[in-house]
């Protein structure tokens, strides 16, 4: 933990009341606070906590992180209650930028979603393409919902968006062919961890981000069945809140955070993160991989001015 700045309500009521969200007008000597809203799956990997300590030391800053579902995180951003957003849902990010709420999106990492399921793989999808696997699960699930099931996040999160994208790419109309199509398709409406647990309980398939899966691997019996496929790409980006919309958001340090993330040293840290714990990295650095991710180079490597 950081432990150096830990305001308790009794100890620093006035400070918190008068300078709740430090602004750019603060003198450089003063410790600034950066407020980040992040999607849960990213936060839960622990990557941000690992980066935060280093950043705080280097920039004489304090980083506060709020983790929430993608929708809620974007909501906080829209209202200008945070300085920086870190999410993984490009469609909605685009809308967010287009609406002028966000600026300076930078992609800093990526990894892949995986399809997990029971070890005995009742639908037999192992090593299929994601689209094929989904189609098979649907077919077998419709035929025998007792043995083949799919649990969906069902919460409009980034992961859920990705799931919908896969259905679409497999040629289905999500709301018509999938939702409410039978007992095989279970819309959980909860977080990733809970969804994995539910899938495990029901011996069902589900789509998961790699980080959450690895974190809960030893507590559940599900195994990864589909790990390859472009459509499974999971891109994490960072953007700062537009001060024109919300005067008062912390601009300087938000930029510094963005640049810190895409800096070569940090990219290296990202590449190595999780290896010691899981034996494999949780993220791939975005640097140098802009083509693979399918974005402009500037969005990956150009520091924010």
């Amino acid at each position, binding site marked *: 933990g950081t432990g150096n700045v830990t305001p308790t309500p009794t100890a620093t009521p006035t400070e918190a009341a008068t300078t709740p969200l430090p602004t750019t007008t603060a003198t450089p000597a003063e410790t600034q606070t950066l407020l980040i809203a992040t999607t849960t799956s990213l936060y839960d990997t622990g990557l941000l906590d690992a980066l935060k300590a280093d950043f705080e030391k280097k920039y004489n800053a304090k980083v506060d992180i709020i983790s929430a579902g993608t*929708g809620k995180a974007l909501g906080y951003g829209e209202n200008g209650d945070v300085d920086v957003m870190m999410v993984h849902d490009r469609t909605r990010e685009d809308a967010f930028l287009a609406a002028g709420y966000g600026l300076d999106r930078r992609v800093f990492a990526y990894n892949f979603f995986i399809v997990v399921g029971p070890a005995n793989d009742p639908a037999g999808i192992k090593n299929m393409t994601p689209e094929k696997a989904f189609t098979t699960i649907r077919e077998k699930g419709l035929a025998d919902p007792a043995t083949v099931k799919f649990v969906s996040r069902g919460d*409009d999160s980034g992961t859920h968006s990705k799931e919908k994208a896969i259905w679409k790419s497999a040629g289905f109309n999500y709301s018509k062919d999938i939702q409410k199509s039978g007992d095989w398709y*279970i*819309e*959980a409406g*909860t977080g990733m961890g*809970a969804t994995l647990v539910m899938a495990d*309980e*029901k011996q069902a398939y589900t789509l998961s981000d790699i980080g959450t899966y690895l974190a809960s691997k030893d507590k559940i019996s599900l195994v990864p069945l589909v790990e390859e496929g472009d459509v499974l790409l999971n891109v994490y980006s960072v953007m700062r809140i537009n001060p024109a919309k919300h005067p008062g958001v912390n601009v300087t340090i938000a930029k510094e955070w963005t640049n810190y993330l895409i800096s070569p040293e940090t990219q290296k840290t990202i590449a190595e993160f999780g290896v010691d714990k899981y034996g494999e990295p949780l993220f791939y650095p975005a640097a140098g991989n802009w083509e693979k991710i399918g974005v402009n180079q500037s969005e990956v490597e150009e520091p924010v001015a």
Partner: protein
Amino acid sequence: MGFIIDGILEAVHLIVTLDPDVMEITALSLAVSLTATVIATLIAVPFGAAIQFNDFPGKKVLIQVIQTLYSLPTVIVGLLLFLLLTRHGPLGFLGILFTPQAMILAQMILILPIMTGLTITALSGVDATIRDTILSLGATRLQFLRHVVREARFAILGAVALGFGRAISEVGAAILIGGNIYGRTRVLTTAISLNTSQWNIGSSIALGIILLGIALVVNTVVTIYQQR
């Protein structure tokens, strides 16, 4: 504040159009929480009376513990129950995880301490002379209970109202044990929670208004019954 107005408008809209999804989750909320409250009442009132009207060593400690359980977080209740009901858990054979039955169980467990504690408080407010009078008139144990509860009915119904309120408004256990499965275990609070995580504030508020609406109806019915 626009959201609040949006929420009210949406609530009105959902109600007048009898939106089937909303009807369903409202009905489930009501069914689950009412059942949990009724069962909890049937346990808590005799249990509370047994504690209040008997002297035994450890009585004070027991009351203390019951009051402490007021602070039991719903997530913890959900977790513990999950560990019991999971496939590999001691009660896994029941196969009721992620069903309304399990949610009833969770809510019931959650509100039992509150209802028992408030029953004790309510009954302790009944005058000793009333208690003596009931006994003296030749009451059996059950008749004693009935009459003393009747005398404390205002406070006991307050406890029931509170238990119901806590049950229908809790979300932690409902989501863990029920799973917030669309069309099956989604209740008002889990739906609100979902909507909020999706930042559909208007819908959240609309569902909140509906939740308060049914709470109002339940309370009114109980109050009318009480005044009969």
